[in-house]
């Protein structure tokens, strides 16, 4: 245990050190800010892409058409079998009438009279189908194979290329994200410990004097740790504030300017992104500051 006055003394000493080594402190904060800012940018982009891919995946459907003589009972049975599959997120039955309505809406828009002429004779009479939405696009091939083997199934449609590309892209993105984040953390640790080392080398003599007068390692270390943690804290709060406003600005800019994109691009709300980013960045900043100062100091405490 340390007394309150010792704690306050060390705390004050930490701030005095920060002020006394303004350039060093500034450099450390800037380094930390840059790294955490990049990290945040990458996380924001990555998680939004991820979200988009997921949305797109959700939209990818496998469509199952039935034999002409398939009974309603058989169709229900097929539907149930599909619904029981694990990789299936959702199954929707589209009746022939429904299929025609949808088709009409898209292809006869503004020309409804022409469509009316087909009224009694549904050209899509054989188009009753199941639309299957997958939980995991990677399982699509397997599902299609299974569906083709089912009784009463005439045809299975799938959007193979799209599904494949999205899945590949998604996992590539995940790997890149992880890679870049690891590199950024490594760079931050390296740069911070480098700056701390420079700062400590300057004060090496002082550390030795303190030890010779009878200071414990902890007592000598405390101001440095305060310094590291404060630098880490400031160096993570600055980029977080910047990122927050930047994120909001970009979000509203894109939503305003590219209305056409709105159906495709839906941003993850800022609050959701920052619910993850704030604790992670602060923890990272403070952690790097703490570990950086503590371990860099270790060598010099052997007096």
């Amino acid at each position, binding site marked *: 245990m340390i007394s309150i*006055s010792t704690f306050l003394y060390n705390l004050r000493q930490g701030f005095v050190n920060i002020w006394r080594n303004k350039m060093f402190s500034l450099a450390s904060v800037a380094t930390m800010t840059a790294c955490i800012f990049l990290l945040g940018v990458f996380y924001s982009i990555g998680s939004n892409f991820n979200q988009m891919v997921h949305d797109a995946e959700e939209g990818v459907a496998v469509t199952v058409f039935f034999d002409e003589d398939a009974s309603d009972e058989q169709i229900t049975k097929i539907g149930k079998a599909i619904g029981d599959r694990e990789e299936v997120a959702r199954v929707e039955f589209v009746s022939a009438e429904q299929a025609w309505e949808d088709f009409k809406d898209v292809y006869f828009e503004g020309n409804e009279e022409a469509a009316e002429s087909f009224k009694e004779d549904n050209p899509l009479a054989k188009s009753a189908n199941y639309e299957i939405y997958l939980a995991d696009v990677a399982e699509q091939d397997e599902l299609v194979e299974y569906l083709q083997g089912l009784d009463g199934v005439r045809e299975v449609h799938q959007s193979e290329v799209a599904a494949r590309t999205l899945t590949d892209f998604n996992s590539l993105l995940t790997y890149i994200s992880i890679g870049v984040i690891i590199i950024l953390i490594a760079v931050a640790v390296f740069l911070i410990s480098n700056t701390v080392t420079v700062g400590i080398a300057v004060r090496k003599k002082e550390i030795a*004097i*303190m*030890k*010779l*007068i*009878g200071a*414990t390692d902890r007592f000598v270390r405390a101001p440095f740790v305060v310094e590291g943690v404060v630098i880490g804290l400031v160096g993570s709060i600055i980029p977080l504030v910047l990122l927050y406003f930047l994120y909001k600005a970009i979000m509203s800019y894109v939503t305003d300017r590219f209305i056409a994109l709105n159906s495709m691009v839906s941003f993850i709300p800022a609050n959701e992104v920052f619910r993850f980013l704030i604790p992670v960045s602060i923890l990272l900043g403070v952690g790097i500051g703490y570990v950086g100062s503590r371990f860099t100091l270790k060598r010099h405490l052997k007096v």
Partner: protein
Amino acid sequence: MIELKHVTKKYEEGIHAVNDISLHILPGEFVFIVGDSGSGKSTIIKLLLKEIEPTKGRVFVNGKDIGLISHRQIPKFRRNVGVVFQNFRLLEDRNVYENVAFALRVVEAPRSRIKKRVPLMLSLVGLAAKYRSLPRQLAGGEQQRVAIARALINEPKILLADEPTGNLDATNAWEIMKLLEEINQKGTTVVVVTHNMDIVRAMNKRVITINKGVVVEDKKGRGDFNQYVSL
């Protein structure tokens, strides 16, 4: 209190700074260590503070073999030993007051005690007026007095002073010597390294003479506080 048993210190460069020295200093003694430059005096002080480890032999301080003290226990040990370093070793980034107060902060002394003791100590060494100066703004003799104040403020059991009057004029040197004698009378064991033979002669204490890392003479004093001297 302090004992060296066949202590040898060889620096990397191969110099035997201390060569098989054995000596014994009793509690409450006042001892001068004299010798030419490079004879190994500061090396002995450093060995006694566990700043350096002996190449051979054993060092006992306060009844403990300090070679056996663990890293964690070193601070506790050093707090009982006040040291005036030959090159002062003041904290360059702190003013006079903070330099002296530091020895109290290290032992987590309460603020009230720091506020009381530091000004007292500073006026004792004649630096009350300069308490806000930084070491680099002080004359050599003034820095020396800061170092002395810092060494004494904790009322250590042992005081090691390496050339504590080296930068002082005769009057100031005598003031400091009187101060050390007072401390010694209160029970602190005092070891003073010096070149000032006038002071050594006048004080009439035990004098250990070192030459090339070897004790060449250990002379009892006739002063009042040397009745414990042994060889």
